[in-house]
């Protein structure tokens, strides 16, 4: 069953084309890892999926929500975009936790503000989610009192709080000290085992090998090659993929 279907996404910043027509289909419970050199458009592509960047062209479908690009940003369209975002958990490279709220308040915020859930109910859900990411004992800490790895795990719990159909990760471990990377990847791996549909932009090759059902290699605004981790890492067909892999080894 298809959960994400994207057709011919194009995006330019001014005169500078970043995405030159990207198609992607992701099935339920599939874990897709996107790799590629910096400037290849992988982060922009991910951000386009939830309209953090508005694509210039293309079609995006996540679950039952379908968005054609172009068209005026009127009330109806803004609502469609919000509906799509509610079903799409987004995890940022720089965490972007709300610094004036404790860990648990961060996780309660979405359900309370967006779904109007009562605070005691939101709290129960948030506690479960924080326990799930291994931070049951850090509920009342402010982000500044947490390590980078802990902050990113709170951010994952926050993204899960709205019960998303898919989770999108934009280089979730790139801002972390090396020793903290593993705890975050472990949480993502656990989610993969539970059958969460996920698209992950990352440079962690070992992680991609372990978790990904499919690896996509992007360069210069195109998808160059895609396949299982073995196909991409061990037997790449395209010259650019080979080049990238030797450079990162």
């Amino acid at each position, binding site marked *: 069953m298809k959960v994400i279907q994207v057709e011919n996404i194009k995006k330019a910043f001014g005169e500078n084309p970043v995405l030159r027509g990207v198609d992607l289909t992701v099935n339920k419970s599939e874990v897709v890892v996107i790799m590629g050199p910096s400037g290849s458009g992988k982060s922009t592509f991910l951000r386009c999926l939830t309209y*953090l960047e508005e694509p210039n062209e293309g079609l995006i479908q996540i679950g039952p929500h379908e968005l054609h690009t172009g068209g005026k940003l009127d009330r109806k369209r803004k609502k469609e975009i*919000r509906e799509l*975002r509610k079903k799409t958990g987004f995890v940022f490279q*720089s965490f*972007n936790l709300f610094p004036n709220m404790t860990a648990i308040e961060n996780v309660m915020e*979405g359900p309370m503000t967006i779904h109007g859930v009562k605070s005691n109910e939101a709290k129960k859900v948030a506690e479960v989610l924080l326990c799930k990411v291994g931070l049951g004992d850090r509920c009342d800490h*402010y982000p*500044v009192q947490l390590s980078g790895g802990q902050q990113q795990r709170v951010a994952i719990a926050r993204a899960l709080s709205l019960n998303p159909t898919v989770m999108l990760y934009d280089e979730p471990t790139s801002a972390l000290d090396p020793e903290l990377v593993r705890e975050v990847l472990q949480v993502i791996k656990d989610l993969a085992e539970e059958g969460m549909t996920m698209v992950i932009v990352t440079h962690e090759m070992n992680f991609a090998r372990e978790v990904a059902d499919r690896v996509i290699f992007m360069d210069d605004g195109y998808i160059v090659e895609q396949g299982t981790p073995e196909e991409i890492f061990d037997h790449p067909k395209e010259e650019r993929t080979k080049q990238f892999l030797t450079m990162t080894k």
Partner: protein
Amino acid sequence: MLESLEGSGSVDVTIIIDSLPSLVKATVMTLFLSCLSVLIALVIGFSTALIRILKVKILYEIASMYISIIRGTPLLVQIFVIYYGLPQIGISLDPISSGIMALSLNAGAYLSESFRASILAVDRGQMEAAISMGMTYGQAMRRIILPQSLRIAIPTLSNSFIVLVKDTSLVSVITVTELLQMSSLIIAKTFEPLTIYLVAAAIYWILITFFTTMLDKFEKRSSKYLAR
């Protein structure tokens, strides 16, 4: 002890004590002017800041012009225009209303800039995180951005408030009997400018020290989440 300039030799404590009730009464007027003006100024400043950030058509130009004019002209001129000038086009306000209008319009322009800067100072990622969850722009502003920008704004807000308290002394020129005007009235009777002006200065200083202490506490409290 302060001695009379006339060299009468008598200690002026009695003059201070005698004039204190009137000075305190005038201080209440100063406080009233400051507090009411700051409340109106906060509303003006906040709404014009939002108008400028949201780039609301037409209102944006009006708000920018307002800020430019207020910041580009002396407060004393603004007071004169409102009190002496407006009656010529049929708008006559009593001295107190004129004073409050001038003070709040003036402070509003400066507060507007502080608010705008503090909203823009909140990390861009905060807005992205909020809307990526499906919040509306309004919800994100109200729940995420504004609470954080308020904390950033407090130091400049308290600075503007201090300036405002001191600026109330300017409305003495349009016969509002606030602290400075009352001091001058007392001096006209007692011929003790040094004593009375120093007492007035001391009262201003006490008021402002009181407010700065309170606002500092408020700032500390609102920044508690930044402590490790």
